[in-house]
């Protein structure tokens, strides 16, 4: 197919967001772009003038999927501005909560959005019809992760126990112990998940790019660390703008980002490529079983990396629960007094590195906020991937071309329209 035009329009509740436009004439790409409106820009304005104590509750509402990451990153930026180091207990609880968010987000993505492509059923609803047991398995794992989120975070949607300095309420040791048993009981489902994804044939594709993620000497970095580029090493979070260079493009209201090259990738595959050695043992076994080897330059394998990270997060949760129980938890009552300061928080969200930067005045009011979300960072890389992919699949039937393009975009697990969900209804009798 030498001439090819695809306009994949993604109808979100706010119209016109998230379109893929590809125009090929005589085998050459004339136009290729992806537009996604990135909303955190507007949320920054809302943070201004707010107290350092309340801003995390606002940023928690930016996203229902990554609420833990937004809240944690916001709190870390505030604590950095106040020059405060939280206790080892608080850090462990935050890591446990983050693991819960990674598991539920990754599992939902691989089961509900990625898997239906392999069955060519359009959506997860098509899978429920003929492969209900697979969907139910995904639901069971997701539900367990949500339970962990509720146990540590007070509730599983927009958790409330996270605060600047410490947790407002600790989980009970006996509940953590009971939860550990539940993870062990669920393990057959995790093994089945690995078998299931092993049975799916990931499309072939290769484009080496720059991979950016957090990294730290002690562990596979999700909660904290320096910012590492596969091209040129590490910087501290406070120097994040040395690595993340945002720029405007004419076709998108969302800023794109580059670092050493004209685009880079964040997310599970970037973390895997940068930090593979620090994965827990079962996660490494699963990577091997699923054919994921470091370094991997096939973007579609980001979804396999998500399965590997899911296993890692379960293993890590067991480790953290054991530590918290054996160390014993104390009720921390920490109220940090306001003061002027400037801090950056960087945390891995399921979709990639999230940055929050805050400046505070003497009264602890926010005078400056900058939030950079993973999907904004991936946009330029998605376009570069598509520029490599499209010329190589033009001999396929049009439906296959479109499916391949969609799968590649979906592999990034992009954040598109979390911000709004307004239903417009038309009743049947009208």
């Amino acid at each position: 197919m030498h001439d090819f035009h695809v306009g994949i329009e993604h109808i979100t509740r706010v119209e016109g967001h998230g379109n893929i436009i590809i125009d090929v004439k005589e085998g050459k790409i004339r136009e290729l772009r992806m537009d996604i409106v990135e909303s955190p820009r507007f949320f920054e304005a809302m943070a201004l003038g707010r107290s350092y104590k309340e801003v995390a509750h606002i940023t928690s509402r930016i996203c229902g999927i990554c609420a833990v990451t937004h809240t944690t990153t916001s709190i870390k930026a505030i604590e950095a501005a106040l020059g405060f180091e939280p206790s080892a207990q608080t850090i462990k609880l935050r890591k446990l909560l983050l693991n819960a968010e990674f598991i539920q987000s990754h599992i939902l993505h691989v089961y509900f959005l990625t898997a239906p492509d392999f069955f060519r059923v359009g959506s997860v609803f098509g899978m429920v019809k003929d492969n209900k047991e697979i969907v139910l398995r995904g639901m069971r794992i997701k539900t367990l992760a949500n339970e962990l989120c509720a146990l540590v975070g007070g509730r599983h949607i927009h958790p409330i126990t996270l605060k600047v300095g410490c947790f407002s309420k600790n989980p009970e040791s006996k509940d953590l112990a009971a939860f550990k048993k539940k993870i062990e009981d669920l393990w057959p489902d995790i093994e089945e998940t690995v078998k299931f994804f092993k049975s799916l044939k990931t499309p072939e594709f290769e484009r080496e790019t720059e991979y950016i993620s957090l990294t730290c000497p002690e562990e596979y970095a999700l909660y904290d660390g320096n910012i590492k580029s596969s091209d040129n090493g590490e910087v501290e979070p406070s120097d994040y703008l040395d690595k993340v260079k945002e720029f405007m493009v004419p076709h998108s209201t969302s800023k794109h980002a580059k670092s050493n090259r004209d685009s880079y990738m964040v997310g599970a595959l970037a973390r895997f490529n940068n930090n593979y050695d620090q994965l827990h043992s079962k996660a490494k076994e699963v990577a091997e079983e699923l054919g994921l080897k470091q370094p991997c330059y096939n973007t579609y394998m980001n979804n396999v990396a998500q399965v590997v990270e899911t296993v890692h997060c379960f293993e890590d949760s067991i480790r953290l629960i054991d530590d918290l129980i054996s160390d014993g938890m104390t009720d921390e009552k920490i109220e940090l007094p306001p003061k002027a300061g400037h801090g950056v928080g960087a945390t891995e969200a399921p979709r990639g590195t999230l940055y929050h930067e805050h400046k505070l005045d003497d009264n602890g009011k926010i005078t400056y906020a900058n939030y950079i979300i993973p999907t904004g960072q991936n946009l330029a890389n998605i376009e570069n991937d598509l520029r490599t992919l499209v010329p190589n699949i033009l001999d396929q039937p049009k439906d296959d071309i479109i499916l391949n393009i969609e799968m590649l975009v979906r592999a990034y697990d992009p954040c598109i329209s979390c911000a709004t969900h307004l239903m417009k209804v038309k009743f049947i009798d009208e």
Partner: protein
Amino acid sequence: MNSKIVVIGIGNLLLMDEGIGVHTINELEKHDLPGSIEIYDGGTGGFKLIDLMQGAARVIFIDAVDTGKAPGSVTIFRAEEVHSIYNKKKYSLHDTDLMEIIKMAEMLGNPPMIEIVGIQPKIINYGTTLSNELAGSMSNIMNTVLRRIEEVCSTPSA
């Protein structure tokens, strides 16, 4: 017989009237409700909402819904009364709407009886306060919601 009734307010508190469902839940928390009622701030929880529906005989969602009526108008309806407009391409988990959640709960089996209390918004834009129109309609909205909860409690098939 299971008599648990779950009331879930959903929406984004950072988008003015879009968060009316959550604002309504915050108001409901100030009332003494029957023991069979559980209320939740569902925020923008997407598929996470399914977990809140587990074990319920009935679920009442409260949400901003564009019915074309005057701002603050309350319309109570069932999912099956709405035209299906949800056969669309998806790239993101973030892009999950209430009708899909309801459809998913139904397909997975043993769904509760589900209804939606839809409130017509006036302004959906970045901001943490309600529009004057919705703030002014709050007592009417609460009366309607409380009356509906009372009806559902006293007449389980209503």
